[in-house]
């Protein structure tokens, strides 16, 4: 696959196409590709899921271990989200110290999960002030054809849904030979998903292919859920790249985001465990 940078030609064509509401694969600008979710990608993980969003593929695994609580949250379990842009997934990813995109991806998923209170961290205490469960989410893109953050968010919540708390042996350590049966304590009705809106010229679009993503001038990642089944709530936001966003852009996003979320959740529910 090519690492050739985007040409002015293609950029200008995309500008015109988007202004006319057209995309190379025939989708509308605010239309997400179809996706699939598979489970049990890695049997040693407490939970794992693979999402294929178009040709983009992301695998997320959940591991749990016994740890000590953070000093400012002695009555809660811990959550840690990591990940890397594996050089496997794209001719643009290199080995070595992580570039910004590699740092940003897990942090955005972390904020989405944490701020939405999807996991009831209070119920992950083993001995208050001393021993708690640490939930470790690891995100690995396997093939980058755009929208890695969005795909990763779906894989993360699918993996969390499937995850089971490990059994402890009599020494209070995780017993790797037993398979856990208790689900992670999740707060009901909170399934956050991230959507990244991109801007090219005056057009807003979501779920780009890698080609479209490379042409984009601006972006903003928004994490949203239908909070406790009552109302839509935005849990996280981060604007990226150089181009500015206008008030009209934000208003437009706030109008379309809830329906986008509902549609995606509907598709996802068919896969959830």
């Amino acid at each position, binding site marked *: 696959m090519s690492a050739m940078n985007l040409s002015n030609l293609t950029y200008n064509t995309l500008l015109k196409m988007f202004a006319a509401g057209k995309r190379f694969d025939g989708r509308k600008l605010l239309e997400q590709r179809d996706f699939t979710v598979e489970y049990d990608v890695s049997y040693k993980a407490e939970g794992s899921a693979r999402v294929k969003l178009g040709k983009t593929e992301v695998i997320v695994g959940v591991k749990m271990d016994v740890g000590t609580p953070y000093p400012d949250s002695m009555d809660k379990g811990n959550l840690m989200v990591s990940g890397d842009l594996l050089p496997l997934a794209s001719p643009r990813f290199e080995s070595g110290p992580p570039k910004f995109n590699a740092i940003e991806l897990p942090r955005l998923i972390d904020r989405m999960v944490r701020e939405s209170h999807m996991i009831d961290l209070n119920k992950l205490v083993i001995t208050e002030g001393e021993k708690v469960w640490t939930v470790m989410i*690891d995100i*690995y893109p396997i093939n980058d054809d755009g929208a890695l953050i969005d795909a990763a968010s779906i894989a993360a919540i699918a993996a969390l849904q499937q995850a089971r708390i490990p059994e402890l042996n009599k020494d209070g350590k995780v017993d790797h030979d037993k398979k856990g049966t208790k689900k992670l304590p999740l707060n009901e009705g909170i399934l956050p998903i991230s959507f990244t809106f991109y801007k090219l010229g005056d057009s807003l679009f979501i779920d780009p292919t890698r080609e479209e993503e490379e042409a984009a001038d601006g972006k903003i990642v928004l994490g949203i859920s239908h909070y406790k089944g009552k109302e839509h709530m935005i849990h996280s936001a981060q604007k990226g790249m150089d181009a500015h966003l206008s008030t009209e852009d934000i208003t437009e996003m706030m109008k379309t985001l809830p329906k986008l979320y509902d549609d995606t959740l509907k598709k996802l529910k068919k896969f959830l465990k």
Partner: protein
Amino acid sequence: MTFKRPDGRKLDEMRPMVAKIGVVPNADGSAMFTFGKTVAIAAVYGPRLLHPQHMQDPKAAILRVNYDLLSFSVADRKKPGPSRRSQEISKVTEWALSPALDLKEFPNTVIDVQIYILQANASTRVAGINAASMALAQAGIPMKDLVCAVSVGKMDKDLVLDVNDEEEHFEDGEGATDMATARLANSDKWTLLQLDGKIQPELYPKALSMADKAFAKIYEVQKKALKDVMEEEK
């Protein structure tokens, strides 16, 4: 008393193998290979430009292998990032694969092979080599042959084929010996030979002979995965 394998396999029986190519569309070539629950994926990028320039070889392409475990592929989560172990495996894998490649055709370039283990139940480096071999072929790299790899174990006094986790930790009698081996599919050219444990010298050729029989089967699996591309279109 012959060793009774925990999963009931015969001494010279491998776990079921699954092989598939094209699993990473962005890569020039890619493949997945499994030994039972051990799952390896490999992606090849190249030949491509090598930076920095001083690393280039004016006579041939450089083969660069990066092997690693995904954090959650093992029971005790592995912290992300290369470990000493993965760096060593990356290097021996490079030495296992390069004799099969015609690197002189692409001077001043690099061929990057990325191997990741999605699920680990021992024998991960040999699963990785089998996957990488198919990925290199699919990438159109000129090759002398495919490379086949398998682990041969010795459990107390018995030689076994395709070691799994439980067997790796066997401690009775002479304990567990693990021998990772790889060879060009069709010639007597061994490119990976590693050993950990206790084995009498005269048994070593017997271990290689066991591997030889395994390679014939592994080669068929690799070939089928590469040739299946036609079946899909029919």
